[in-house]
């Protein structure tokens, strides 16, 4: 045994509540409050995972978010999550943890042999080989050894993750001494405060570092301050990581619950952000510095004081700065045999009692296999050790500051990048800003909050001994012996950085990408600076000249589920629903989505043979009378003194000549001339029109009308109101439609003289006004009856009831599609595409005749618009007995041994009324090729068809008045 749990102490654990969980198949005991990492340490597990590339054995390095090595897949009593950081994940009873990238387990990984070949597979080796015959041949093997954790394919979602939006005056990130002080001062200034910290316990470094504040021990001060802040009604969130600062200082938080609930995403918009994110300890560069049980000194202290885990018996503490002295002293006091190897020679703090100090000495290598066994110093001294704890100095956690576009300033004496010029709305405090002594920390917090307003709170005072911050930079150097590891997770060594430099990957971003330095799940929190300092050394530049890579969110990995929140299933893109949906369902409607609306495709129930039902509906619709719910049609009112002028401009067709009470069919074009929508325009009176646009275009047509109104006509000239959802529109079509409607007794004359085709009338159904438009999308006599949406049900019921005697049929959209195709009526977006101009559809009048301006006009006269070889709208008929063409079939021509598309089938059905297939198509020069038989191809199969006019049924249009 080297690491062990002490019999007393441990501020974070509750010894009265033992727990156990499994790691790589073995049972591990711990206490409530343990992290997976602290429990594994207490159980003296040394190897907790394997590195990404070489499958090197790796142990726990840190005690927080910076951890590069200790990743585990967790499952069991908790939700399955791959690649969980053992240092931040609570050890819950029944949890099952499995080391990543290790088969069968971390202690005995089958792929460990790869490390023996490491010299042949340095950084970026894959660009230099695997080219013959083809990379894809090697790829599966490489992929299988890469990757870390495993996804559970049977995983079931526990439900959507919560997302919370908040505003506050001040958001403080980090609840160490700086953050606590800043929060307290901001609260005292009467501001609303949110304080967040990524640890389960608040206090940051005060959780394990010696301090006395306002005469109290650190822990008591922390508790008191938190209680004070929370007591005043401010929000304090633990286990919550601020992971991104986005535009306009929106800050995103990842809150973990540890009780089975998915993480919560907070989007907070504070007026002021105080970053008190502290600093992260760096490793020291020496050969084999990645062996298990070589650990961050600060982490060793955290494990000792928070979890009562003493990580070894014979410990070498190696440092280049003052912060490790407290660690060495504490480890010695706890009973370990401690040697402190100090790089610096002069002006050193006093050696802690019980600690052997070797000043002016550095580690050059460590030895050991599955755990460290000893170290060699630069004077050749060899020391045995079961653990090595190192402090290579501190890297301020500048990530969020940089995400907010903050620039960094290099501080030579601290050997670190510090936040540079301030960013609007953001201030920085504490170790992030380079403060070491607690009194400096507190004064930086006061400064960070000074602009927020006068505070009633008293700034805390450090009343105990103070840490000092001396440091001697210790960066990896070129040509060092052995393998000096820089990025533990991605297996980047100093030699890889040298290789990158040798091959001219000297820009810091090239260095990162070439070696993958800093691209692992820890995003290089412990490694980036060492890598770029080495690059600076090799290329004769200073560290700031080399610069840092871009800091990108998230600061720590955040569950995907958190971002999605409730935005799944129907909420992903909500479908619109008919007012009579339930009535249709009761009537056996089978629904499908069309243009964002859920509409009956056909009736007859889900069990019915869809094709037969649809054919039946379409056939019967022509025989007597059909009922159809057309409520989705757009109903946008345009009114005002310039309404007529406005619709003239909006439509391709002249509309101002329309008489009140009449309707006209027309196209709307985009400015590029393409037909954007088609539909009926109704003129209610001189200054009032209703734009009836197609279902899927209601929102976009409305937006377009508004745009032109505001841009070209002005607020007082036209007013636009989208009444689509206010009204239901029930369509009655067929030879007997008039008969059915008359029986409803709507209080208006349906006489053809008074209500001819393309006219409207006003009537009543009971108490409610109804508008009747005699327009047709079937080619048969039809009436569209519009009524308040909430009163549509009785009218529909009456129609159904009355229809019985007439053998009426209720049809869904599919039958309607057949009926309109029989007539050659287009559906925009189906029978047209994003290049179709109005004259391609045979409507050339306005283009050649109109004198006044309209949307898209000039585009109808470009070279391309006038080109002969345009695709034009036609019908296609196939030889007798042949099946319908598939929609999407292309017309083809051969030339020069090559095939060429001449257009394609846009709609195709079997027409039950005609008893043969019908098809609509866009065909090159189609309008002038009626009668020509052409070749077509679908999935390699050749077909033939004859070009016809689009209208296959009742070409003279007699049925409109029959």
């Amino acid at each position: 045994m080297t690491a062990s749990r002490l019999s007393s102490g441990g501020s974070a654990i509750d010894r009265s509540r033992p727990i156990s969980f499994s790691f790589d198949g073995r049972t591990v005991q711990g206490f409530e409050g343990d992290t997976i990492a602290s429990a594994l340490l207490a159980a003296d597990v040394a190897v907790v995972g394997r590195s990404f590339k070489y499958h090197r054995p790796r142990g726990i390095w840190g005690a927080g978010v910076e951890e590069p090595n200790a990743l585990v897949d967790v499952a069991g009593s908790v939700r399955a999550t791959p690649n969980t950081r053992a240092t931040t994940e609570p050890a819950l009873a029944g949890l099952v943890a499995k080391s990543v990238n290790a088969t069968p387990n971390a202690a005995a990984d089958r792929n460990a042999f790869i490390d023996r070949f490491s010299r042949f597979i340095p950084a970026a080796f894959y660009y230099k080989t695997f080219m013959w015959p083809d990379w894809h041949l090697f790829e599966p093997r490489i992929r299988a050894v890469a990757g870390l954790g495993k996804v559970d394919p049977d995983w079931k979602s526990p439900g959507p993750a919560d997302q919370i939006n908040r505003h506050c005056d001040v958001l403080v990130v980090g609840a160490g001494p700086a953050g606590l002080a800043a929060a307290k001062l901001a609260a005292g200034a009467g501001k609303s405060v949110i304080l967040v910290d990524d640890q389960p316990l608040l206090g940051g470094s005060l959780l394990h570092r010696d301090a006395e504040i306002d005469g109290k021990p650190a822990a008591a001060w922390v508790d008191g301050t938190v209680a004070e802040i929370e007591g005043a009604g401010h929000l304090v969130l633990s286990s919550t990581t601020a992971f991104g600062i986005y535009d306009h200082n929106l800050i995103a938080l990842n809150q973990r619950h540890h009780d089975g609930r998915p993480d919560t995403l907070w989007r907070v918009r504070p007026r002021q952000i105080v970053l008190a994110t502290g600093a992260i300890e760096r490793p020291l560069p020496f050969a084999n510095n990645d062996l298990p049980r070589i650990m961050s000194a600060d982490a060793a202290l955290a494990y000792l004081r928070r979890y009562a885990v003493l990580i070894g018996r014979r410990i070498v503490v190696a440092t280049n700065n003052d912060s490790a002295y407290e660690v060495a002293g504490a480890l010695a006091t706890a009973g370990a045999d401690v040697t402190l190897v100090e790089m610096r020679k002069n002006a050193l703090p006093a050696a802690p009692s019980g600690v052997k100090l070797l000043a002016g000495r550095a580690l050059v290598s460590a030895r050991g296999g599955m755990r460290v066994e000893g170290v060699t110093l630069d004077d050749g001294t060899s020391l045995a050790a079961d653990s090595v704890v190192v402090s290579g100095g501190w890297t301020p956690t500048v990530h969020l500051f940089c995400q907010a576009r903050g620039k960094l300033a290099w501080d030579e004496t601290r050997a670190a990048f510090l936040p540079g010029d301030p960013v609007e709305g953001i201030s920085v405090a504490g170790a992030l800003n380079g403060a070491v002594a607690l009194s400096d920390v507190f004064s930086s917090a006061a400064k960070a909050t000074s602009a927020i307003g006068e505070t009633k709170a008293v700034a805390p005072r450090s009343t105990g001994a103070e840490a000092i911050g001396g440091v001697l930079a210790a960066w990896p150097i070129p040509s060092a012996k052995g393998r000096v590891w820089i990025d533990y997770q991605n297996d980047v060594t100093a030699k890889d950085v040298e290789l990158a430099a040798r091959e001219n990957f000297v820009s810091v971003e090239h260095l990162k990408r070439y070696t993958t330095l800093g691209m692992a799940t820890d995003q290089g929190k412990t490694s980036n600076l060492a890598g770029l300092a080495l690059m600076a050394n090799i290329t004769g530049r200073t560290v700031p000249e080399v610069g840092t890579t871009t800091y990108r969110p998230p600061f720590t990995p955040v569950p995907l589920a958190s971002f999605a929140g409730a935005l799944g299933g129907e909420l992903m893109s909500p479908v619109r629903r008919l007012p009579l949906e339930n009535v249709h369902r009761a009537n056996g409607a089978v629904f499908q989505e069309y243009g964002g609306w859920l509409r009956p495709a056909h009736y007859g129930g889900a069990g019915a043979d869809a094709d037969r039902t649809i054919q039946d509906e379409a056939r019967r619709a022509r025989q007597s009378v059909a009922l159809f719910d057309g409520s989705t049609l757009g109903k946008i009112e345009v009114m005002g003194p310039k309404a007529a002028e406005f619709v003239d401009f909006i439509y391709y067709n002249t509309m101002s000549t329309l008489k009140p009470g009449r309707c006209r069919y027309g196209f709307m074009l985009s400015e590029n001339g393409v037909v954007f929508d088609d539909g009926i325009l109704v003129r209610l009176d001189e200054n009032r029109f209703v734009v009836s646009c197609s279902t899927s275009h209601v929102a976009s047509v409305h937006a377009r009308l508004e745009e032109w109104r505001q841009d070209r006509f002005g607020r007082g000239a036209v007013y636009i109101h989208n009444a689509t959802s206010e009204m239901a529109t029930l369509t009655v079509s067929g030879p007997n439609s008039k008969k059915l409607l008359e029986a409803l007794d709507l209080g208006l004359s349906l006489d053809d003289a008074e209500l001819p085709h393309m006219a409207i009338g006003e009537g009543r159904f009971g108490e409610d006004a109804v508008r009747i438009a005699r327009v047709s999308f079937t080619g048969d006599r039809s009436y569209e009856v519009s009524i308040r949406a909430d009163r549509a049900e009785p009218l529909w019921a009456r129609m159904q009831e009355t229809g019985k005697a007439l053998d009426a049929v209720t049809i869904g959209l599919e039958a309607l599609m057949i009926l309109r195709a029989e007539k050659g009526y287009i559906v925009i977006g189906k029978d047209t595409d994003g290049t179709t101009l109005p004259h391609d559809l045979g409507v050339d009048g306005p283009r050649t005749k109109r004198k006044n301006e309209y949307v898209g006009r000039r585009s109808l006269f470009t070279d391309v618009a006038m080109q002969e070889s345009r695709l034009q709208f036609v019908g296609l008929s196939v030889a007798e007995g042949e099946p319908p063409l598939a929609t999407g079939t292309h017309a083809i021509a051969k030339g020069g041994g090559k095939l060429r598309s001449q257009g394609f089938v846009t709609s195709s059905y079997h027409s039950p009324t005609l008893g043969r297939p019908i098809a609509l198509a866009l065909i090159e020069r189609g309008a002038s090729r009626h009668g020509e038989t052409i070749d077509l191809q679908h999935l390699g199969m050749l077909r033939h068809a004859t070009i016809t006019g689009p209208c296959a049924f009742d070409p003279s249009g007699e049925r409109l008045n029959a």
Partner: protein
Amino acid sequence: MTRRYSALSLFKEGLAGQKGWEPAWRSPEPKKTYDAIVIGGGGHGLATAYYLAKNHGITNVALLEKGWIGGGNTGRNTTVVRSNYYYPESVAIYDLAHRLYEGLSADLNYNVMLSQRGMVFLAHSINEMEITARTVNAMQINGIDAEIFSVDDVRRVAPLLNFAPDARFPILGGGWQGRAGTARHDAVAWGYARGASRLGVDIIQNCEITDFIIEGGRCRGVHTTRGTIRADRIGMAVAGHSSVLAAKAGFRLPVNSYALQACVSEPVKPILDTVVLSPGTGVYVSQSDKGEIVIGGALDRVPSYGQRGNLPVLEGVIAGLLEMFPTFAQLKLMRQWAGIVDVVPDSSPIIGESPLPNLFINCGWGTGGFKAIPAGGTLLAHLLATGKHHDISRPFDLARFASGRLLDEAAGSGIAH
């Protein structure tokens, strides 16, 4: 010095501590004059420089990059390579690129990791199945490998997709291109840089073009942050920054610059062997060789040169991904970023002479120009070397906007990217 890359040289270098490799490309000081200048060290610029030297023997060439090569969209994209386009003009250009990609590792002696793992375009409705049929037919007619996939076919290549019939975007089938896949973006940039440098091209980084030298109405060179450099043939391939340079040259382009975001999950063992695109969610996804799930989606909605990710678009994209692959909800987001893409109204590239004589442009690749890099380079090199269009680039001339001869793939096939 070891020049050639191979398993054997890697082995030999391994025995010698990998110390003998020569620089992948040289970084010389810029000369005062060159025969040609290429502006922009993205894939298109680097490939242009390479093909100028290789295809046309023009080696006295400077490639000028304001930052580090490959640092623009070429190093930020989701690396999908495919050629299943709708219009013959598009097919010609993307097929040229695809074929060159297939031989690129050998040509450059640099493994660009072309992984032809296939790509499936899902169809979520009968209408989308019809559109898929239309596009697949067009591709087959144009000589591109394309197939229609049934639901079972889709299940075979991507079993973790959400096949529930009541899903918001139910899967009815889709379209498939087997030769499609991914390639390693950095390797494409570095491989071209290495190839060009060896043929004599000067690759000059940290060299921003600040203005053009215009004499007698023609472009004669550039002012840069590293001095004035002259040449009578200048090509620019600066993607999202095209309008900025065009303004300096005195003209405007039909380009809007937007951020396009992408993100990756933490690496996991292989779970997705192909590239999947859903038109319903607008999301496309693949798994990198390192194991990260690489996720791309819709363009940002606010024009920007900001080159950074944001929350609203990310949330929509991830929600879309989880709609497609519900089990991916156990993964964590590792990194999020953005590139500034050059969006053109018809989403087709612009290649050709600019209104300023001697200056040629290659831009407008928008969200989908990684797959086109070898072609973009070949065609711009051809223009620079001959002063004339290659047949394949002619339809993509800037003049198409006045003639109305747009090539709108989205309009034709409903598929962007």
